């Protein structure tokens, strides 16, 4: 029988056993609920940003509706006009919140007119309506005074606006994706990497490892376990991302920048590399423990390294994505998974550098499998207390 079949059987067992477990399903549903909630709750709680409805008494002065809508646009307020032919029905609509305000100005502008609010005036809306009415009146007066309409329009043209340093299209989103990447990879390490760790310790603690290793090579068992749990991790990640995108597209007009597919591919690649590297290290260290209580002890060094890499990524790299710290950290296998996608999302790394970083990390993973596989072989059957790394290495000696 080929070693690949053996590895795949181990991986399949992990996927089926863990994927069907209540804990996995609950945590998946719970997290999905949080993701969907974080997109939809604001909309539900704070109301949707639909247009503000304003009622006007019909007949109204010519051009009032247009004047209110355009003035609103200038002040970033979207207004929808609803005509009412009786003041009473307009006021009733205000009372039952169907419209925000009711404007009653005589069609011939013969009186100053009224604006009716429900409880108190909304100053912004009041300002919009006031300006619109005032503009109509001014036009009316000036037209009656035979002012040249062209000169009038020219006089009313506002200055053009210029920005010296306009923000790049989608820069905020880029930043968000960069951060999200580092967080997801950290979650991958801490959630699924620790699943590998506890899986290894459980096998030792239940003593099943001796039966398994009587046919499966230690390195293959470790590889299958990392692979199977990684598949679950990717399934979960994909599930969350899809749920997030669907929720986002349903509830707002949130638009992803054009660089998103590239960033997502980077994220997936580095999630896989980062997870594989860290979960292998955690699996090897897990073999040194013989009880669950020792597991967090043996894993401390890896936890610290992962945290350090994360802090470098959110402080040093975001501040200065081209700086020496960022460049060096991109070629260290333990930090690359958190640094490179960040720099890529910020556009601060070339494709050649990315390829090189991927290669370096893969070499790191391979080296870890060779060294770790031997430590794992030496430690997996040692069931009395915590084993030292060096002893495990020696006891598996050729």
């Amino acid at each position, binding site marked *: *029988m080929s*070693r690949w079949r*053996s590895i795949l*059987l181990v991986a399949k*067992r992990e996927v*089926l*056993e863990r994927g069907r*477990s209540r804990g996995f399903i609950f945590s998946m549903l719970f997290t999905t609920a949080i993701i969907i909630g974080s997109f939809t709750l604001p909309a539900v709680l704070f109301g949707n940003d639909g247009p503000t409805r304003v009622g006007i008494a019909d007949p109204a002065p010519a051009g009032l509706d247009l004047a209110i809508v355009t003035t609103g646009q200038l002040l970033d307020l979207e207004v929808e006009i609803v005509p009412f032919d009786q003041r009473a029905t307009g006021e009733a609509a205000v009372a039952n919140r169907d419209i925000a305000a009711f404007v009653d100005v005589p069609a011939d502008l013969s009186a100053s007119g009224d604006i009716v609010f429900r409880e108190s005036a909304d100053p912004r809306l009041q300002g919009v309506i006031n300006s619109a009415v005032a503009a109509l009146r001014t036009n009316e007066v000036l037209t009656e005074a035979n002012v040249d309409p062209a000169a009038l329009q020219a006089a009313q043209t506002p200055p053009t606006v210029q920005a010296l340093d306009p923000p790049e299209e989608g820069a905020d989103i880029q930043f968000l994706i960069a951060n999200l990447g580092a967080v997801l990879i950290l979650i991958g390490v801490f959630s699924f990497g620790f699943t590998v760790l506890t899986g290894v310790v459980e*096998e030792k603690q*239940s*003593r*099943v*490892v*001796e*039966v*398994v*290793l*009587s*046919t*499966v*090579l230690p390195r293959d068992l470790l590889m299958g376990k990392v692979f199977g749990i990684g598949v679950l991790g990717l399934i979960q990640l994909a599930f969350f991302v899809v749920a997030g995108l669907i929720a986002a597209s349903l509830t707002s007009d949130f638009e992803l920048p054009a660089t998103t597919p590239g960033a997502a591919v980077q994220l997936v690649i580095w999630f896989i590399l980062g997870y594989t590297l860290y979960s292998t290290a955690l699996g090897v260290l897990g073999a040194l423990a013989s009880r669950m209580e020792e597991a967090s002890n043996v894993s401390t060094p890896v936890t610290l390294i992962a945290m350090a890499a994360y802090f470098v990524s959110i402080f040093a790299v975001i501040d200065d994505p081209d700086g020496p710290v960022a460049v060096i950290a991109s070629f260290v296998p333990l930090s690359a998974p958190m640094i490179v996608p960040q720099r890529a999302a910020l556009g601060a790394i070339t494709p050649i550098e990315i390829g090189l970083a991927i290669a370096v990390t893969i070499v790191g993973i391979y080296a870890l499998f060779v060294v770790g596989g031997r430590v794992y072989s030496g430690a997996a*059957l040692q*069931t009395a207390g915590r084993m030292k790394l060096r002893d495990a290495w020696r*006891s*598996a*000696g*050729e």
Partner: protein
Amino acid sequence: MLEIIDLAKRYGHVVALDGATFTAQPGRIVGFLGPNGAGKTTTMRCIFGLARPDRGEVRWKGGRVDRDARLRFGYMPEQRGLYPRMRVGEQLAYFAQQHGMSGQAAGAATGRWLERLGLADRRKSKLEELSHGNQQRIQLATALVHDPELLVLDEPFSGLDPLGTATMTEVIHERAAAGVGVVFSSHQLDLVEDVCEDVVIIARGRIVAAGPIDELKAASGRRHLEVEVAGSDGAWIEGRPDVEVLERNGGRTKLLVDDRVPLDELLAAARGAGELRRFSYQPPRLSELFMEAVAEPDAATVAEEVAS
């Protein structure tokens, strides 16, 4: 045939194996005996590549034991253990597949063994939901489900109730009859005497006795003689230098004799003392052979070995 050749293994300063050599033939049941710490578990672990010997090797059908050979072995380690939360049926099928069976064949074999061990209705239960005895049965099934050609069982009888012991004995006999070589370790020597044809006795990492039980017994010069003479006080036996009196209780005497003792003479003497009720001449029990074999070599023997 399984050959254990000159295995040596040392853990730090502790010598676990010191040149152990023996063989196990197909269709034969070998009882692998020895005091705690003598090297039984280490030997078994070497067979499965779980421990790497410092010297010596394990051969199967004339070749070195590699992973492919091990797929044809079944193992029940001393430290029992399976996946506690995995379903019984899936667990057995998993181990069968890890031994190279196809998914379909593994499922069928699982069904057969669960049926055979009376656990067909527990196929979908999690292992931890089973009683201790039933978990032991599943552990045995794990070693058997892929139909191995060699069965290595480390203390298979420990912790079994009489029913479990009966099942285990039956299965071991059945497998051996099917041509499977069986090696099992045990401390229950009377049981071993009932179950096995061959024994291998290990002490301090070396094999101190090996062979068919009957031959070992015959080769031993010791014999037990139990004589009961009604109305005698047992005085008839006194004064013989070739007889050691182990126990004397009225007319009943238990004696330890050399196998060259003149039986006719003793029988005549007993008859002369009164009405003979019982005269039984037996080889030693396995437990005696064991004690004799594993006894610490006395200082004289050690000196002799050093000198030679």
